[in-house]
């Protein structure tokens, strides 16, 4: 049961990170090896069920306290657990991006870039997006693309640095530090549910500068799911809260990840 539970949930979008290896702490028989931990946490964070759907509301707050909002419906379908998956994002707010559609075919293999498209309804234009930097902001928020669709486990080395009564804390060091803005990050993973509860990013000088927390976790269709997460950028003073509602798993999403549905989304993506 525990296994099954850990297998599902879409927080696909939510926070996360995770990762791997480091020596197993042989002394504690309850503690799996770090690769197992990060694999499970990755599945919990991004691959719950075969597919998932949620309405997402982002509130972006800058240092001066001004807020901006983004609202969209997101549909996800896995090609393989822990592997490729597809995302369909239908924007509802603000009104200047309303009905825009963002489509991502995520590829997890070494050196493979995702395929991304954007549909601009006013021009009836299907645009292919060249962006390859996954550390750029997602729709102007403090979340980056990798926070939303996941960071490949094989991009970092993983070490279990702490085990408490409730958490595994894993330290993740990028294999190619020149490609990212952090020197390492830690992830605190719930021992029971394998939900990543907190991530802390350290800059090249070793200073903590970015924190992502899971503020609310609920069980939905037996899948522990992050329903509210918060990212704080300590350098800019900005923060973004992401709230998930209308979350459903295994909804039977069809093959909607193509041009036909970019130009006119399926009904299930529009409400």
């Amino acid at each position, binding site marked *: 049961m525990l296994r099954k539970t850990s297998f599902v949930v879409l927080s696909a979008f939510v926070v996360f990170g995770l990762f791997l290896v480091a020596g197993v702490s042989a002394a504690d028989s309850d503690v799996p090896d770090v690769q197992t931990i990060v694999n499970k946490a990755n599945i919990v964070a991004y691959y719950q069920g075969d597919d998932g759907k949620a309405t997402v509301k982002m509130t*972006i707050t*800058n240092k001066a306290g*001004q*807020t*901006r*909002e983004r609202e969209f419906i997101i549909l996800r379908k896995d090609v393989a657990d822990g592997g490729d998956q597809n995302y369909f994002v239908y924007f509802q*707010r*603000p*009104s*200047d991006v*309303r*009905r825009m559609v963002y489509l991502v*075919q995520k590829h997890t293999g070494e050196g493979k*870039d995702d*395929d991304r498209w954007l549909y601009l309804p*006013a*021009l*009836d*234009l*299907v645009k*292919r*997006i*060249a*962006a*390859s*930097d996954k*550390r*750029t*902001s997602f*729709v*102007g*928020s403090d979340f980056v693309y990798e926070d939303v669709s996941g960071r490949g486990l094989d991009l970092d080395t993983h070490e279990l640095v702490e085990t408490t009564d409730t958490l595994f804390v894993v330290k993740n060091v990028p294999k190619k530090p020149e490609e990212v803005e952090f020197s390492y990050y830690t992830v605190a993973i719930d021992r029971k549910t394998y939900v990543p509860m907190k991530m802390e990013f350290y800059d090249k000088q070793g200073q903590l500068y970015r924190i992502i927390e899971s503020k609310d976790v609920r069980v939905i269709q037996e899948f522990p799911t992050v329903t509210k997460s918060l990212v704080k950028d300590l350098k800019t003073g*900005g923060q973004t809260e992401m709230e998930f509602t209308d979350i459903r798993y295994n909804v039977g999403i069809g093959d909607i990840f*193509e*041009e*036909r549905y970019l130009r*006119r989304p399926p*009904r299930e993506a*529009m*409400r």
Partner: protein
Amino acid sequence: MIGAAGQTRNPKCEYRPGKQRSDSTVQNGGSHPPKAESAILTFASCSLILGFQVLFAAVCCPVVAAQDEEPKPGPIKEFFDKLDTEYHGFYEARAGYRLQNDPHEKDMSILEARYQFDLFSMRDWGDVKVKGDLYGDGVEEKGVFDLREANLFMRPTDTMDVKLGRQVLTWGTGDLIFINDLFPKDWQSFFVGRDTEYLKAPSDAVKVSFFMDWANLDVAYTPEFDSDRFISGERLSYWNPVLGDRAGEDNTLSVERRREFLEEDELALRLYRNIRNYELALYGYWGYWKSPGGFNDAMNAAVFPELYVYGASVRGTVGKGIGNAEIGYYDSIDDRDGDDFLINNSELRYLVGYTQEIGRDFTAGVQYYIEQILDYGDYEDSQPAGMPKRDEFRHLTTLRLTKLLMNQNLNLSLFTYYCPSDEDVYLRPIANYKASDHLTVEVGSNVFFGDEAYTFFGQFEDNTNAYLAVRYSF
């Protein structure tokens, strides 16, 4: 160019800068009624403009004061809510001036207050969409209603989509260069500094799409020819080969419209499929040159000669970026031999492009485009003496740079057309700032220069302008 407008400098196109809309009736001797599109409501223009500006100010001021707060739904929105219909849109004020004197046009390049409504309703049997713009035009001193979309969408089977009515249609791989996209463009809006959205003029058409295992097919049928809203001397000064000089609102040209419903129609097809995320497409078009491509001596009017186009394109990942290539054969039916100097020759058009992210939130795109006149020898021989001739090959390069700053709220972009064979340039720098979720401020410029007054971009040199716009979206 920019595809359909590309023949501008063709001396055959003396007519090209003809007028459109209502002036066609006047100048064509009234043989064809003006089209419903952009019905011109000849109001006492100034009062309307003033009204809009007051409205705009009324809406914006409280918003600026409390820009982070969601505005309360007004009675209009509540009314549409009851009908289960989404109501959105924007108010916009836009003003621009020429940066130099233009002897043929006003100093003001654009001055308008605009209201756009966008209604959308999902029903069991399909979707209904109606979008329209009402604006007071301070340059032409009139009020205009431009119905941009009014269509029904249905998904009758798993393998078929249908969209019927006024709609914006786009396909092809070019970035502001169109080869196989022969749907109407609004070059005038593009050059005077309206939002890029207005480059695409709507079509009154039915589009039926079939989705099959081996490929998908789009069929777009337009029962009555929809031309480009091409350059008219009314707003932009241009090269007039008859005069052998630049001209403007003092010398707009007449055009002979095609308005025979079901007779003068257009058919466009696209057959496409993805192979490993390389998007392959074949195209066909049976219709007319979208901007005037010929001249009727007897009528002394520009005409839209018959045109068939066959083409192909591919787009996909190349290295770290996206590459695209497209080709089109323009079969000018009324001058297949190329020896009629009043009608455009057939052409081949080629495009390759590449876009890549070159820094954080910083993207660069380059394109190389060629227009080749076929039967060039016959073209040369048929041209009257003294007329500037087009080169056999027109080379055009473009560069797009886009940088996002301030949490992606500030978008700086520069689009550059440079034509080494004509030695002319067109620059489009734009800075767009989202002051809040509702309020956007934009400044931009359209800069033209060239060595000669008759080249495609060079002819517009005196139209070089800068503009400022404020938009409140709801």
